[in-house]
């Protein structure tokens, strides 16, 4: 069964460094998402992406964050200058089409630790 994959599974970085989290969505999916889960808290929406542009972003997704689909298969989340509060689990999700009937499939997550 096709699945969403994410790399790395765990990333440790120093405050102020740039990180790139990578996701490979399911191949025929068209809508892509990033969510974040700070330890012990709920999963929060960050950004949605369709047709090579951001469809919607939350207030969390400030200028330090960016997303792109560089090669038609990977979907990346970049944090330019990490802060301690960026430490969280980051989940990528994809969806085959934009209709409300289609569910999102989540990847296994990348645990980001900022020291």
């Amino acid at each position, binding site marked *: 069964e096709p699945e969403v994959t994410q790399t790395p599974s765990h990333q440790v970085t120093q405050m102020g460094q740039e990180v790139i989290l990578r996701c490979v969505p399911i191949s025929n999916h068209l*809508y892509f*998402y990033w*969510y974040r*889960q700070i330890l012990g*808290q*709920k*999963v*929060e*929406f960050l950004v*949605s992406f*369709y047709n090579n542009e951001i*469809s*919607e972003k939350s207030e969390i997704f400030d200028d330090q964050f960016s997303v792109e689909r560089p090669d038609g298969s990977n979907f990346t989340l970049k944090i330019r200058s990490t802060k301690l509060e960026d430490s969280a*689990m980051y*989940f990528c999700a994809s*969806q085959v089409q*934009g209709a*409300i*009937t*289609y*569910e*999102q*499939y*989540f*990847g*296994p*997550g990348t*645990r980001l630790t900022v020291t």
Partner: protein
Amino acid sequence: AQTVTQSQPEMSVQEAETVTLSCTYDTSESDYYLFWYKQPPSRQMILVIRQEAYKQQNATENRFSVNFQKAAKSFSLKISDSQLGDAAMYFCAYRLSTSGTYKYIFGTGTRLKVLA
């Protein structure tokens, strides 16, 4: 704004027994989906069950079923014949449709412990 509330931070159930996890939500929309996701210690989000708001019939998936009360904006998950593998964090989620995207709004989760 849409919100999802899970009022039970933690629940326990004996193996083979039945447990119900509660979820309420707030929305002004009439067309939406509701989901229950399971998050085991591995942290991966796994879809358990989903419910279309326009359907009156409650969704079921093997040992998992929901009690969807649209007027009350309630969406509870019943797990029958609980197994040790059901121990996990369970998140209720509402599927928003706005601006052409379909982001999920999650509740705070309920940690389910299954006692042998």
